[in-house]
């Protein structure tokens, strides 16, 4: 689809992470390919957020490796991340969308930023201070800001965790549109219904290990293990 080299597949090998004496990830091995969204599931404390930060490069592994198909310097511009609590620069909505575009040296950043705002339905709020937006609008702005960069891979860390149902649905629609535009979405969530709606494949983390992985439909219809089934039922998983 794109006439350029791709940074996928992403190979993760023996990935470990420890902080303050606690092992958070205990050796993960998997490969991420281009395609439908990958949803990372697991109970609180399983290491989902840490995994996303390691993949995105915000944290450095204490063991193992995260290997992209391209050199690291080229990968930085080809991936983006949206956080659970969107970080709004103390500027206008438009200036927020512009900031990473200017940083990346995109041609015609103003047009690209306005277009990105229009795609998430924020065009009318372009001149408002970003921090005056509602929680849902802020998250849509964060998505627009990341989407405008046309990343090959987009990491989303529980993007709807603090949103009401209507705002959640809007965010899900945007995420689906981003995935449909050819960006590989890698996302964590606590919302199993949302995982069913968005996932192409599922990774289930338990206790810092990759417990199960598979295509979404098969994973939800017939969970591969007893613990996976218990997790999907909402039982405590130990």
């Amino acid at each position, binding site marked *: 689809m794109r006439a350029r080299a791709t940074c996928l597949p992403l190979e993760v090998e023996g990935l470990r992470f420890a902080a303050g004496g606690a092992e958070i990830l205990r050796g993960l091995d998997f490969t991420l390919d281009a395609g439908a969204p990958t949803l990372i599931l697991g109970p609180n404390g399983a290491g989902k957020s840490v995994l996303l930060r390691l993949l995105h490069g915000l944290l450095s592994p204490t063991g193992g490796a995260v290997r992209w198909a391209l050199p690291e310097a080229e990968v930085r511009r080809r991936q983006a991340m949206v956080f659970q609590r969107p970080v709004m*620069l103390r500027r206008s909505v438009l200036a927020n969308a512009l900031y990473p575009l200017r940083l990346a040296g995109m041609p015609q950043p103003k047009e690209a930023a306005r277009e990105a705002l229009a795609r998430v339905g924020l065009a009318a709020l372009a001149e408002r201070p970003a921090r005056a937006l509602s929680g849902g609008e802020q998250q849509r702005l964060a998505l627009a800001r990341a989407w405008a960069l046309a990343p090959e891979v987009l990491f989303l860390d529980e993007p709807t965790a603090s949103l009401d149902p209507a705002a959640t649905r809007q965010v899900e629609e945007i995420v689906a549109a981003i995935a449909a535009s050819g960006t590989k979405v890698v996302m964590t969530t606590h919302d199993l219904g949302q995982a069913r709606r968005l996932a192409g494949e599922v990774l289930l983390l338990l206790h810092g290990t990759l417990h199960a992985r598979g295509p979404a439909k098969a994973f939800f219809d017939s969970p591969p293990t007893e613990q996976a089934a218990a997790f999907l039922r909402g039982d405590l998983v130990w």
Partner: protein
Amino acid sequence: MNDLGMAFATAFGLIVGGDAALWHIIGLSLRVSLSAVAVAALVGLPLGAVLAVMRFPGRRAVVVALNALMGLPPVVAGLVIYLLLSRSGPLGSFGLLFTPAAMVIAQAVLIAPILAALAREALSGLWEEYRDQLRSFGAGPARAVPTLIWDGRFALFTVLLAGFGRAAAEVGAVMVVGGNIEGFTRVMTTAIALETSKGDLPLALALGLVLMGIVLAVNALAQALREIAARQGA
């Protein structure tokens, strides 16, 4: 008691009557202190932002030194600048001693550490919030520092006002390097000190009232800015 009452009356007369000498002194005070804030800001704000953003060996030592310099006695700063600018000093050839320029330098040296330390404090919280996002955007320290300064502009403006208040109220350093020369380097604080010791209380009191008025106005402005910033969700 009666003296004080008469002094007040005369002081109001001087202010309202637009006494030329009085207004010259006030004008010079404002020019010197505003220039000093501008010069100190050029150094202090970026330094504060760098200290908020970057982790490097010796950073803690710099922070401790800045905090210590915040308490630098003005006369000591004045003495050091005096030695540097005096005819036989290393910068003597510029002939700056006993000029308003020397007073600007002295006040800038005094408040630059204050601006840097306050800016670092004001921007640290913002950096906590922005760090991951800016790194995710691929912004290195060279981009993060101007971003923080711009996005922290409301907080930094109150930092500048604090610096201005300190500079305008300072007497020791400008006395030493300016010499309190009438009509040339005499500012409000040095004039108050001199007129009080001479016993010309009305002029000293008039200047004191104006100085307090300025400090009050500066603080009101700072408060108004904080409220505007809060309304904008900044």
